[in-house]
């Protein structure tokens, strides 16, 4: 019973939403929209699970007095503080919640994003080390595309930018689309397996 009920619900929901793609009937779409609304409500309630998990995991750590205890305490205080100010004074523009979000959270998020530049540099350095024929091809192509996209490229050869565009639009795009087609078929196959109950690893072994 523990497996049958989820399997039946999955099948009904999956079949219904596949049908929704093909059925433009207003009544049918109305039902689909309502079910999507339910999904949003369920997802919202899942945040309670998230907060409970963060609290439980970090409180356990604090009780065990691990070496990162001070950080865990700060995390829980921040969580409680932001929740309280958000619930009491709201989250609209100009509120305390908004001030902390804009002045503390957004700069930290930007800092993490900015780190990408350094990571790209170190990753590119490793990628362009020529150790094999494929690596040589990759490095040469990358250099050609880079030169084609800066003014010096056109100074060397007036069609350099067109050549770089050709690399991007023909061989690169062909490879990308091949991966996309494979991935799309894999997604359809996985979806079908889950809907008809062939794939039930997530429900446990038979």
């Amino acid at each position, binding site marked *: *019973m523990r497996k*049958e*009920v989820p399997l*039946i619900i999955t099948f*009904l929901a999956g079949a219904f939403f*596949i049908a929704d*793609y*093909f*059925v*433009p*009937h*207003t*009544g049918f*779409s*109305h*039902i689909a929209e309502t079910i999507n609304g339910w*999904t949003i409500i*369920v*997802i919202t309630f*899942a*945040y309670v*699970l998230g*907060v409970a*998990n*963060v609290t*439980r995991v970090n409180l*356990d750590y604090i009780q065990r007095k691990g070496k*990162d205890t001070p950080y865990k305490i700060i995390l829980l205080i921040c969580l409680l503080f932001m929740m309280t100010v958000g619930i009491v004074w709201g989250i609209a523009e100009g509120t305390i919640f908004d001030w902390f979000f804009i002045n503390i*959270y957004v700069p930290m*998020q930007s800092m*993490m*994003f900015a*780190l*990408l530049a350094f*990571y790209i540099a170190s*990753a*590119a350095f*490793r*990628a362009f080390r020529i150790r094999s024929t494929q690596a040589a091809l990759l490095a040469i192509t990358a250099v050609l595309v880079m030169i084609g996209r800066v003014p010096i490229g056109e100074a060397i050869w007036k069609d350099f930018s067109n050549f770089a565009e050709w690399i991007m639009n023909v061989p690169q795009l062909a490879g*990308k689309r091949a*991966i*996309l*087609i*494979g*991935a799309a*078929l*894999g*997604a*359809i*196959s*996985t979806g*079908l*397996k889950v809907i008809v109950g*062939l*794939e039930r*690893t*997530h*429900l*446990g*072994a038979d």
Partner: protein
Amino acid sequence: MRTLSKTKIWSLVCILVLISLGLAIAQEPAPAQTQSTSDSRWFDDNRWNVFLTLVIIFFLIIYFIEKAKKGKNLFVRRIAGLDAIEEAVGRATEMGKPILYVPGIDDMNNIQTVASMIILGNVARTVAQYDTPLIVPIRLPFVLPVAEESVKQGYMAAGRPEAFQKDNIRFISDEQFAYAAGINGIMLRERPAANLFLGSFFAESLVLAETGFSTGAIQVAGTANIHQLPFFVVACDYTLIGEELFAASAYLSREPKLLGALKGSDYAKGIILAALILGAILISFNVEWFKDWFFVE
């Protein structure tokens, strides 16, 4: 027989619930704007092509599943990235360090996350046999109970339910870079010996993979988000490219029915390839109807 009747009863209950809710909803007066644009058609004529393509793909998949059920041996090529998962688990066990499994940053409505949860169940089963901690950081709370259940079932399937540690399935934050920072913290503090990044990733992919690389962990990544693949290829030891992520479950479990489905989608790919070649030939001779047939409004 008893299970079958229970299934039938529950199917009936589910159908009745859906129908009654549907009828109740349909009887509600629709808003004024929707009434003016109401549609009474039960099939969108512009989507016949998608419908037929889906029917062909479904037929192929079901045909090969039936073939596999009859005991037909189906060949699946070696996928190095998936073979490496067991190697990574073994290495982590030898070093006495945990394994980090990152299921991507998308919700359960993304099929990549579903595929990732399926792989997580298989990984948990392997990990349970080796008695190595498995850390699973989660970005979206809706994924949390699914991940908990997948890991728990993996441990149960391995016969070691007592080894399952609920606290290792950790909700970090639903903000993309806060989540990435949280995982980086786990990698730098707990030093996992193996990092598995399998699911849907975006701009945080390189941040995670490069940090993992700097810790010296063996890294296996897999995603169908093509813009992130180059980052994983550069920074990880093994990368599952696109469809390989979806093939993982069949490959790891070797279950005939799942291998059959894999074979079916391979044949569907063959048909698409033939259609592409035919389309290229026809368009070269200015025959456009074939190309137009694939157009979806």
